């Protein structure tokens, strides 16, 4: 990697609280109020030229969630990591969708898996799980088997058991009851 550590330190001086380096990878820790500003600098500065948001994800810490941006420069081919700690009391972060369209789905996934909400996100819904799912699976307190007691398929030894699988009543589930949401008929997006 060709990056110039001093350049980063100079440019990002006003943003990061601390920085680190592990195996040649620069990591900056930025307060969440400055994230948007910091990323826009990284994107627009011609020396840095980080034009791609390569990845956006979360990691659970004791104090809260760690929001992680992997910034990538397609021309210079290197990464830096921007981190921001979101305290568990208020799981809200600014959305970077206006800067990077790639953040759209990534932020939805972060919301889906960790319950982290993004301000001003155009369409914040669950993306991988069904919308009526309970809990946020990648949190450590979420058990591997899920909150609901679902028997694995090999637990049903006889064919009759399979016939008597607990049936989800589709008519009672919100999927088949659009009437409740008639007010919002026109939109797909729902405010969570």
């Amino acid at each position, binding site marked *: 990697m060709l990056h110039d550590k001093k350049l980063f330190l100079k440019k990002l001086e006003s943003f990061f609280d601390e920085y*680190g380096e*592990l195996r040649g990878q620069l*990591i900056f820790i930025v307060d969440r109020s400055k994230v948007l500003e910091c990323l826009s600098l990284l994107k627009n500065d011609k020396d840095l030229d980080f034009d791609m948001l390569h990845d956006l994800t979360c990691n659970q810490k004791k104090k809260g969630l760690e929001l992680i941006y992997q910034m990538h420069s397609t021309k210079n081919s290197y990464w830096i990591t921007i981190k921001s700690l979101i305290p568990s009391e208020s799981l809200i972060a600014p959305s970077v969708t206006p800067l990077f369209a790639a953040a759209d789905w990534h932020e939805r996934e972060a919301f889906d898996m960790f319950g982290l909400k993004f301000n001003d996100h155009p369409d914040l819904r669950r993306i991988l799980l069904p919308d009526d799912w309970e809990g946020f699976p990648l949190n*450590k307190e979420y058990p591997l088997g899920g909150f609901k007691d679902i028997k694995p398929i*090999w637990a049903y*030894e006889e*064919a009759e058991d*399979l016939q008597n699988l607990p049936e989800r009543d589709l008519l009672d589930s919100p999927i088949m009851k659009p009437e409740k949401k008639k007010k919002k008929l026109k939109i797909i997006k729902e405010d969570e």
Partner: protein
Amino acid sequence: MNVQLETITNISMIFAIVMFIILMLFAFVVIRSSATGIKGGLRLVLEKFLRNFEQNDTLEYPGNDRVMSHRWRGRFVQMIDEKGRMRCDACQLCAQACPDNLIEVLPEGKGRDKRPRVYTLNYAACHNCGFCVDICPSDAIRFSRDFETATYDRTDAFSHNDNESLVFNLEDLVAFESSVYPELFDASSPGDVADSLGYFKQKNIFQADTYEGYEPMDEDALKIVEETVHENEEKDYEIPEIDE
């Protein structure tokens, strides 16, 4: 016949024929501009048709079975040594290595006579990662080339009693069928199949200290397993710090 009429008919005949030719040319140009590339594809497909009419490489599957390669990771089998005893000494390593905990081993006997009393493989949920065979220190289990493991009913695969069941116990796993693939089960067989045997011989791709923690194979082995499982559940997550 009227001369004038003859002229007219001749002119119009010639005119029609000339225009026909022009039209043909026009159509030719249109066709050439829009369909030349099709020619190559058509020729190619026709060649294939004529070639395959005579001979074809396709195997007709039920009947002409494909022989799987030497390294094929099918369901594993228990090896038997020269004295007719099982090589497995119930060290529990395969059960430990299995990411899905599909192998269950209960030992019997002591010291050198220690053998598995119960050895179950839930092949229905197995995803053929091959760690069990890779980790085995005494070369007691090897892959067979069995790949036809489909059942007609989903429940058959998981039941313990059915013939089609994919839950294998000790009797199912012992390599009594060594006559089917003699080279696979004969540790001393030479020749071209040495590929596979070479692979199995040098398959100990893990460091020796992998086995250290599991060397003493007492009756307490099960306890150790349980402890590790508990360790898994109760492990304390420390937040990694970043190097300065």
